[in-house]
């Protein structure tokens, strides 16, 4: 028990880093689901594409002599902005080419779901091809950007805690994700576009009769969701240093899980669900072998997180922040 408590500060730091990443990606799932009732499985691969675009920008800038001495922060901002812009436009393009024609023909939702899985494969292979072609390897490792190490001295204040150490990248990831989460929340809850988005999510036909251009609102939703996902890909790259074309799959599944945990369609729910899932996962990774006396190692962390998910959904199927749907007769 004391060992678990000692590790808590470190679990908190690592869990938050991962949780913030899940939270932002989960928003992309939940926004699209809220407005189209579509689980856009390609979203995880948008995230992955963002990380590769970020790596591409980094390599390009490094190869240009005059830029290689640019401050890290500037470099980082360029990576984030370029990745967000490219993935945002990609998201809009995917919606135009793949989902909108289906919507026009009133195709069943299952067809759109299968389409999104197809797009997910296309993105994975396209990124793999391009990465392999340009660098000779599809697994990309970049030099760490923010490697300064910090230690928070928990031990001297609370003797039962160990100290927590983290890299500078933890701060960068946290600050950027928090800024993204807050500004998105303001956008959706306060502005005319956010109001329009929520109106379209509730009743598309009435919204269009009230002067809202529904297709445009859907495009904006895809742009914002995808741009956030792509930017988070860059943060992932900065935090963990190595990316491959398949990181989007498992991370996407988990972010989707986070969205369901918080109540799919609910943006604040997705934020909370993501952070909770990250913390649970890191808690399990640190403590599973202690709890089970070595029977299960940290590789079972996903099982632990998903058991929690199943328990929550058994008792609250609409998710933690979701509204219970009442069957209308």
């Amino acid at each position, binding site marked *: 028990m004391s060992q678990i408590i000692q590790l808590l500060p470190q679990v908190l730091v690592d869990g938050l880093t991962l949780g913030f990443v899940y939270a932002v990606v989960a928003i992309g799932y939940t926004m699209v689901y809220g407005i189209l009732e579509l689980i856009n499985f390609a979203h995880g691969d948008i995230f992955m594409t963002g990380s590769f675009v970020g790596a591409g920008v980094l390599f390009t800038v490094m190869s240009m002599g005059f830029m290689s001495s640019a401050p890290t922060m500037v470099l980082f901002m360029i990576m984030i902005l370029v990745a967000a812009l490219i993935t945002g436009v990609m998201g809009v393009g995917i919606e135009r080419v793949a989902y909108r024609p289906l919507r026009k023909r009133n195709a069943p939702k299952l067809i759109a779901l299968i389409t999104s899985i197809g797009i997910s494969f296309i993105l994975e292979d396209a990124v793999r091809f391009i990465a392999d072609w340009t660098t000779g390897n599809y697994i990309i490792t970049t030099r760490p950007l923010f490697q300064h190490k910090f230690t928070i001295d928990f031990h001297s204040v609370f003797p039962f805690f160990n100290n927590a150490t983290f890299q500078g990248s933890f701060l960068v990831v946290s600050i950027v994700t928090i800024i993204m989460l807050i500004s998105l929340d303001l956008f959706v809850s306060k*502005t005319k576009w956010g109001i*329009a988005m*929520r*109106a379209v999510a*509730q*009743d598309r036909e009435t919204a269009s009769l009230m*002067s809202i251009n*529904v297709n445009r609102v859907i495009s*904006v939703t895809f742009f914002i969701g995808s741009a956030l996902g792509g930017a988070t890909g860059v943060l992932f790259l900065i935090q963990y240093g190595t990316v491959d074309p398949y990181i989007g799959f498992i991370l996407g599944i988990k972010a989707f899980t986070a969205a369901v945990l918080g109540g799919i369609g609910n943006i604040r729910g997705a934020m909370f669900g993501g952070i909770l899932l990250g913390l649970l996962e890191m808690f399990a990774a640190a403590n599973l072998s202690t709890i089970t006396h070595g029977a299960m190692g940290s590789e079972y962390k996903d099982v632990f997180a998903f058991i929690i998910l199943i328990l929550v959904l058994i008792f609250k199927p609409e998710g933690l922040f979701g509204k219970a749907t009442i069957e209308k007769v």
Partner: protein
Amino acid sequence: MNILEVKNLTKKFGGLMATRDVSMNVEKNSITAVIGPNGAGKTTFFNMITAVYRPTSGDILLNGKSLVGLKPHQVCHFGISRTFQNIRLFNEQTVIENVLVGMHQRLKGHWIGTLLHFPEVTREEEAAKVEAYKILQYVGLEEFVNESAGNLPYGAQRRLEIGRAIAAKPKILLLDEPAAGMNPKETRQLTDLIHDMRHRLDVTIILIEHDMKLVMKISDYLYVLDHGELIAEGKPDEIRNNQRVIEAYLGKEATQRG
């Protein structure tokens, strides 16, 4: 001057003729009523004007320009706004947000500017909120500003629908059974509101209504539909005594026996 001209409007759903050859001329700034028994095609008619349905044949002209083939939001943009027979508010949004939805097209803020919080966009949003509040005062809902629309009492929901519709600053306002389910007091208030809107907002009003007392009192001109066809038109007094209208409502037998 006619603001709206409807020419030989026909809508078929498979073999069913929902409206057949309906023509209307609506004078600017008038109050026009469309009446008829249930299933006469009145709401279908509204749905064609607002581009929910595309007419099978015929034309709809607003100030001489055809509306056929436009999308609903474009029709709204050109100046036709409406309410619904079965209330269709955005129940999970607040009362003021519902009004702001109605103002959407009139606000210029581009979504990129909104996302980046450009100062002029923020100013516009603030001004819009003030205006939305004034609209709520006008329809008498200022006490509910931040209430969820779904929690309002029934009569207030009907008024909110009108508030949302006039927020778009329409030239023509379509009211689909605005008095349905209202008690006599609420109906009186509604009558006053409709009169007032015509003068104050300089709007042309077309309404579908079953409450004959209300219809006869406020309409300048009436069109009567039955089984999708126009069976009569005229001023309230002419319609009141029209034999075909009485038959449509009461059935042929009843009128002969009586």
